[in-house]
């Protein structure tokens, strides 16, 4: 029996400890937003946050997340209450087929959390493990950079107020 915290709620499973987190989240806990693209850590479609760190969960056994915080795209934001990246994604019509986008957004959210003011090279470095077969890269990159700018502007305004 392995216990971990999934989008804020403690859950437990008797799935085999070697089962990759992706399949436990999808098949046991029925959260289907995280995707399977390669099963080998090569595409990023399965990206979730483990204690705020973006990780490839198709190769991450659940034994490794016991007791840890797991956040999926469902935990990042919802249709009614979107994360700023998700709102920006919609405004820029970033997705094409959409299949990679949960992973892209999770990777981007982790990047901005750790580096609120990334350069283009920072974005490239953080996002290059996330494949988009439809080729939405121009928009993904532009949207991450513009959300970072908005955040900075917002924070600056808050500081000035304070």
């Amino acid at each position, binding site marked *: 029996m392995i216990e971990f915290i999934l989008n804020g709620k403690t859950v437990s499973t008797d799935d085999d400890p070697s089962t990759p987190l992706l399949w436990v989240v999808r*098949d046991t806990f029925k959260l289907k937003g995280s995707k399977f693209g390669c099963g*080998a850590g090569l595409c990023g479609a399965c990206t979730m946050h483990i204690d705020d760190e973006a990780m490839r969960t198709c190769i991450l056994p659940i034994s490794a997340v016991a007791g840890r915080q797991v956040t999926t795209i469902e935990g990042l934001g919802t249709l009614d209450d979107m994360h700023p990246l998700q709102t920006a994604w919609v405004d820029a019509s970033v997705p094409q087929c959409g299949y990679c986008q949960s992973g892209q957004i999770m990777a981007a959210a982790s990047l901005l959390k750790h580096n609120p003011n990334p350069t283009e090279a920072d974005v490239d470095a953080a996002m290059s493990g996330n494949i988009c077969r439809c080729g939405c890269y121009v928009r993904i990159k532009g949207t991450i950079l513009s959300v970072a700018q908005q955040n900075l502007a917002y924070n600056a305004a808050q500081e000035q107020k304070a």
Partner: protein
Amino acid sequence: MSAINMSRRQFLKTTGILGGGLVIGFSMTGCSSSELPITLVQQGFVPNAFLQITPDNGIRFYCPRDEMGQGVTTGLSTLIGEELDVHPKDMEILFAGVHSDYNNPDFGVQGTGGSSSLKAHYLQLRQVGANTRGLLVAAAAQDLGVAASAISTRDGHIVVAGKQYPYGQFVQTAASLEAPTEAPLKSNAEFRYIGQAFARVDAAAKSTGTAEFGIDIDIPNMHHAVVRRSPVAGAKLKSVDKSVALNMPGVTDVIEISSGVAVVAEKYWQAKTAAAKLSPVWDEVALSKVNSSDVRADYNQAMQQDEGVVDTDEGDVKAGLAAADHIVEAEYWAPFLAHAPLEPMNAVVRIENGEADVWSGTQGIVAAQGLVSRFSGIPVEKVRAHNTYLGGAFGRRGTLTHVIEATEVAVASNKPIHLLWSREDDIQNGVYRPASLMKIKAGAKNDGSITAWQAKRVGGNITPKTLQNMMPALFPGLNDGTIDFMVGLSRDVFAGWMVDHASVEGLYEDYDTDNKTVNHVTVEHDIPLTFWRSVGHSYTSFAKEGITDELAEKAGMDPVAFRLKNTQGNPRLNNVIRVAQQHMLAMQPAEGRFLGFAAHNSFATDVAEIAEVSVIGKTIRVHKVTCIVDCGIAVNPDIVRAQMEGAVMFGLTAALYGNLELVQGAFKQSNFHDYPILKMSEAPLVEVVIIDSGTAPTGVGEPGLPPIAPAVASAVYQATGQRLRSLPLKIA
């Protein structure tokens, strides 16, 4: 091998078979009077197959085409919404079930592909929208006691003297009236939604993980299946010791099926782990001995020794070459490629009480229905087929082996089955873009006018395999023998009698000259082939544009000016090239960067691309691509831009990396480490310039792809002096 008298058109008419893009022009079911696959909500009113309007003014649009990322839900809802006066964002958009009313007007079958959707439905869906609006206006006139002429409509509302009434208020009356059949359409100047770059209707679902793909379907008691298949296409299972898998946790069944052996378990990971334990033994087939070098050698031999079949013979090429001041001749190569959509193939099939359900993201849901019927013995009327979002397709989701497999497993195991392919399965057991060896000999005068164009292509054809895949799906009642006969017939026809046009499209059409020949030699090695984004154009553009650059250089002309000179008979392409030239002249590439140019017409759309490239050591880096496109009216310009951006990236993956190698009949590559996809850090900036020529829309999903490889190759030549004539591009 001799040319034939029967014209291509006549042949197509007689057989109903159509090479290139998609297939088959006859009605499959004849069921236009059958019940629509629409679930009524409240007292919903269904005026036609595409709409349901509820009393609370809910407006549902049943999208007849499949959403694989190309934005078709936004595009088609814009067409119907324009005339209905309902903004797409105010509609609930559902994927249509199976019914002949949802046929693609261009194909006569319920299929999505060939960059056809907006073009094919442009007038049809607008007319449906206009007729429905006319009906609602008539109902409102009756209910409100005013003249129809006093009524206007706006955003889902009837407007009378400044007062607004929701459409839903009139559906009961509307249901008792006859809808007009030819309500007038808006003029282009009256468009409110067509031509506007509003956000995609599916962006929110796709940004929150709530868009449902086939892989996400989850139904009660669903079991998971994983299949082991032969690494060599067509090789059958000889033997397997099932017990090693049967003893694994969660495993309920191990079943031999047509494509191999399937392991069924309660959870996917259990099925996957158990399937990996199996050591199936496969038959040997002819392909089992074939390596990439054999394929290439066979193609080379055919190129040298076999005249092949004549596709096109216009004017007098010999005389044209004799009249030329400059002649070039070269061979170009393009390899086998996989589509690798990011969502691997999958299907869910449930068979219960003599009825069946199938869920799968397909490029033709009617085919999923047909396959389930055929392989379960349940009549088509009792098979409900549910489409989902497609996690990419690019031509791959027209072949539905996974639906056959899921059906076979569901029947044998007596359980609802979720069957999922791995990435390795996708790369190694798929259907492929054919490899091609192309040779062009062309001549030009000193003034740059082309005098002769002699082209030849060696490779496999996609149409026989496409028929082999589609006929069982579209004719569930037809027996295997008949299908084998027809597939064999098409294979023989295309090998020795006439040319599968998809094999040579794009090799010769764009440039002016009266003297053209195109010959084709079919050489196949039993590798399953199908259409792949932009089909024949994906490789012919590379040869056609490459040789054009070579000829321009030989004639001492600027390559862009040379193309302008030779597109007098092709005014729309000429204009696209002219606009591109202006952009190119204004560019000032930084030190060490070089510009390459290419243009190509495909799917009735004209595209020119300028690639800004640097070469450092052996690394080709594409920094920026400027894409000029004329696709008629851009129904949603932002989606046109997105499709050009996407096609550039897709084409760059092929130009820089895409290569499948055959070892003993099996493809060596298996996942993204050895079949790499362009990454963000390698992605160029893409600037898209849309020329709105105001005519009816033409395709956008594919035409952005063909120019990119030759444009990059052209820039590489500027940078290094190396003419790269093989894909993927490799600096020597």
